């Protein structure tokens, strides 16, 4: 299925959000996630099923004013 990750389409077989993060190499990173504009807490990632066309945001700490 195709998932839009941080604005880039990717082909992924990940059933859940936690598996997608592992595919991306983010399993140990300090990141926060949203699927289709809704916040998904760390504890809810494994239970969050992904479907073709889902939009996933993976955000990390960054400089800000």
């Amino acid at each position, binding site marked *: 299925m195709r998932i839009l990750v*941080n*604005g880039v389409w990717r082909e992924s077989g990940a059933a859940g959000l936690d598996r997608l993060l592992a595919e*991306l*190499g*983010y399993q140990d*990173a*300090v*990141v*926060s*996630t*949203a699927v289709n*504009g*809704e*916040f998904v*807490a*760390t504890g809810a990632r494994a239970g969050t099923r992904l479907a073709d066309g889902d939009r996933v*945001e*993976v*955000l*990390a*700490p*960054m*400089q*800000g*004013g």
Partner: protein
Amino acid sequence: MQLYGAQVGSRLLLGTARYPSPAVLAEAVRASRSEIVTVSLRRESGNERSGQAFWALIRGLGVRVLPNTAGCHSVKEAVTTAHMAREVFGTPWIKLEVIGEDDTLQPDVFGLTEAARILSAEGFEVFPYTTEDLVVAERLVEAGCRVLMPWGAPIGSGRGLNNLFGLRTLRARFPEIPLIIDAGLGVPSHAAQALEMGYDAVLINTAVAQAVKPVAMAAAFAQAVAAGRAAWEAGPIEARDFAAPSTPVIGTAFRQ
């Protein structure tokens, strides 16, 4: 200064963006003696992992972080970003920005008050980036905000306090609410002016980060904030239109 029950010694808050290097950022934070720095969330890039290194650097500074919702243009975006920030940064503090106009980065005060109400009800401690408008400030306080952050001038413009009358009125109207000038200050005298007027603190980013010598400028802002606060506590005189001789006139020589 108390911000949502937290005792904060420094009245200078520092942004962490636009520094020439992470090392200069760290040195500037130390030179500013700030106890609070603002941070943000952005998309993590696959290879660079710059976010992880940045977060390690900030944690090493031993300061409080105030995450922002910079770049959000809707209530929904701002609320979702606030939830993501709370999880990553482990703080209920959120500098709430809902931008309404791109050229001036003027806050959308309608979206701001709505987002402030939602987030306050969810336990966030909201620092709203707002204008000096009194009625908006009233609505934000009603929504649960216990700190207000009015702009001095548009973000990054370095213009100082654009609306002195409005800012004075806001200070007078909300004597008990901590007021922090957020955005638009360019030089330390702007910061001193804000503190002299009774503002509780200032938040500086571009004026330090983009200075020729950011670390030296951070130290200069720290001095200005300390001087401005000391002046406010000392009670400044009222300005007047005509001269008032400082040397006693009684006993002046050569007069009839």
